[in-house]
């Protein structure tokens, strides 16, 4: 067992960890030693090939095929230097005021989140894409959405030099997405923060971490770890968990914090989603250009958000309902497919939680509530209307039986798409906005941390990621994670004298 000592150790390097690392980096000048531990590897720019299986295996936990305990929902989350910011599409939205108000976390105000969000949006070069860079898939969504009576909005995106590869979810092959791997982590590193990849934290001990650094396997993508492979005990005066809504609660549960934090792992939400497709008569530009440029926000009124999307052959095939000739015909129509991602704004409910399996890995217990299913059905109906208004010949709707709705039936989508056809286990449901498990709140009886990510009763332990969300955010979460992480870092700086005393190197 190799021993190491730091003042601050950050676990995870995604939107939360990358932000905390950047914001605490100036402390290095004062002799404070800061370490970031990332479970995934660091990839060279030329390793982002855009090949679906190869990149999914490299970038996602379980190759993107992590399933909930009952096997009905696929959860996607990244595992790399930069965390899930390597694989998101860069959509940048400020948390809705009504959501933060409904969270009712003492000490957390929307104005504060909005102010910090604006700062990170600027830092990440967030802007609207120029009209000439919008592809047909997005344009049809705008036209169809407006014709169907919806308010369609353009996504601000954190891009620099986007060439329109459409491969965002497989890691941008052109280094154009301004995730933490491009912005915050390099800045932190340049100021003296140490970052170690392929380093999995097994347990949180008393002001220390049990860590295993793994060797790069033959033919595996990514660089070797910065540390020698082996087992480490890393002492820290402050530990910040930014391992995501899956990683942070799991790590704390595995480390035995469950009995003193009864809310640990609870209130898990994930924005369950469907990928819907429609077939047009002629080819459209869909697999070129930024895939997710527009959205329709019906969260407040109807509990869903519609977003443009474009996925890769296997992901598309998996997410269509059924199989056989009808499924194949739709796949063969790929150049003529328009796609919409429908996202349900689920609510934290008892029973939807993260636990730890006997092998120490996360187990997610999640049941779709009646309300969530109804939201997905409403979203599917709305999407079908948008597709047909945009001129589609037929629409694939998972909650219709049969799922393919022809244009002649466009007027009957409200009858054809119905919750009675929503058969869990048959219909593909996926989620990529994983939230909760270390929720913020007043005290340890109903929450895990306070509004600044301080774990109740454990002053040296903080959380800074989407696990803090006490309920779903109802929009794409990365910017809010950064704003929350900024608050956590500010809290650490404010308490530095009390928390850190003399720097680790000064002992």
């Amino acid at each position, binding site marked *: 067992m190799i021993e190491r000592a730091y003042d601050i150790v950050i676990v995870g390097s995604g939107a939360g960890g990358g932000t905390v690392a950047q914001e605490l980096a100036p402390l290095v000048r004062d002799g404070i030693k800061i370490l970031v531990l990332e479970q995934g590897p660091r990839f060279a720019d030329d390793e*982002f090939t*855009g*090949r*679906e*299986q190869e990149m999914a*295996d490299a970038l996602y936990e*379980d*190759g993107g*095929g992590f399933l909930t305990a*009952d*096997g*009905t929902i696929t959860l996607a989350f990244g595992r790399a230097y930069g965390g899930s910011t390597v694989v998101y599409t860069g959509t940048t939205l400020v948390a809705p005021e009504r959501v933060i108000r409904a969270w009712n976390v003492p000490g957390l105000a929307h104005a504060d989140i909005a102010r910090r969000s604006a700062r990170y949006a600027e830092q990440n070069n967030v802007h609207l894409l120029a009209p000439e*860079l919008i592809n047909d898939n997005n344009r049809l969504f705008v036209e169809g959405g407006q014709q169907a009576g919806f308010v369609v909005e353009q996504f601000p995106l954190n891009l620099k030099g*986007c*060439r*329109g*590869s*459409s*491969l965002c979810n497989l890691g941008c*092959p*052109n280094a154009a997405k301004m995730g933490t791997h491009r912005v915050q982590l390099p800045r932190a590193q340049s100021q003296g923060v140490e970052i170690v990849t392929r380093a999995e934290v097994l347990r949180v001990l008393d002001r220390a971490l049990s860590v295993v650094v793994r060797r790069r396997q033959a033919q595996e993508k990514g660089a070797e770890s910065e540390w020698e492979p082996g087992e480490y005990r890393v002492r820290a005066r402050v530990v910040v968990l930014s391992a995501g809504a899956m990683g942070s609660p799991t790590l704390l549960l595995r480390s035995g914090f469950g009995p003193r934090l009864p809310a640990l792992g609870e209130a898990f939400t994930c924005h369950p989603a469907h990928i819907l497709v429609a077939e047009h008569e002629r*080819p459209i*530009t869909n*697999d*070129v*250009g930024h895939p997710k440029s527009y959205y329709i926000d019906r969260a407040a009124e109807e509990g869903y958000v519609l977003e443009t999307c474009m996925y*890769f*052959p*296997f992901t*598309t*095939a*998996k997410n269509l309902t*059924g*199989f*056989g*000739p009808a*499924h*194949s015909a739709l*796949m*063969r129509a*790929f*150049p003529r497919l328009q796609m919409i991602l429908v996202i349900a704004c689920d609510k934290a409910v008892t029973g939807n939680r993260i636990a730890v399996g006997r*092998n120490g890995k996360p187990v997610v217990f999640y049941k779709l509530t009646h309300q969530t299913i109804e939201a997905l059905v409403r979203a599917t109906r709305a999407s079908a209307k948008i597709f047909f208004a945009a001129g589609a010949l037929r629409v694939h709707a998972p909650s219709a039986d049969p799922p393919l709705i022809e244009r002649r039936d466009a007027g009957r989508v409200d009858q054809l798409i119905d919750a009675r056809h929503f*058969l*869990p*286990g*048959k219909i*593909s449901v996926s989620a990529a906005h994983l939230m909760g498990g270390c929720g913020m709140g007043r005290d340890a009886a109903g929450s895990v941390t306070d509004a600044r990510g301080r774990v109740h009763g454990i002053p040296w332990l903080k959380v800074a990621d989407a696990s803090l969300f006490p309920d779903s955010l109802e929009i794409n979460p990365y910017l809010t994670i950064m704003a929350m992480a900024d608050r956590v870092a500010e809290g650490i700086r404010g308490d530095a004298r009390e928390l850190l005393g003399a720097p680790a190197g000064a002992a």
Partner: protein
Amino acid sequence: MAVPALLPVRAQFRALARTFVPEATGLDERGWAEAEAIVERFLATRPASVRRQVTLLIRLLDLLALARHGRRLPSLDAARRLRFLESLQNAPILLLRRGIWGVRTLAFMGYYGRPEAAALIGYRAEAGGWEARR
């Protein structure tokens, strides 16, 4: 080295894959080898228990076909195999629906995970993006 999950049930898996993706009927031995290698690579990173479950599930589907139609999956005609699997996909038992979803997902992974299949359906995304299309 992980024990292959498909090897003991290769004929059954291929019969299933041909039903899920009719175009798979046209795969030659090299194409099948490539598709199966993709699936095996994916399964090799899963726990041994998951690999055993996949093998068991395919055996179970084979036995169910025998019980219902008097023929195992590889010798069942394509139309009846399709109807049989569709009925399981809509079964009232979640475990059966999940099982079908899982096996079909593996078949899609093997078939559509091959660059040839992506090209065949007209998928053309590449790093060059807009420039490459002009």
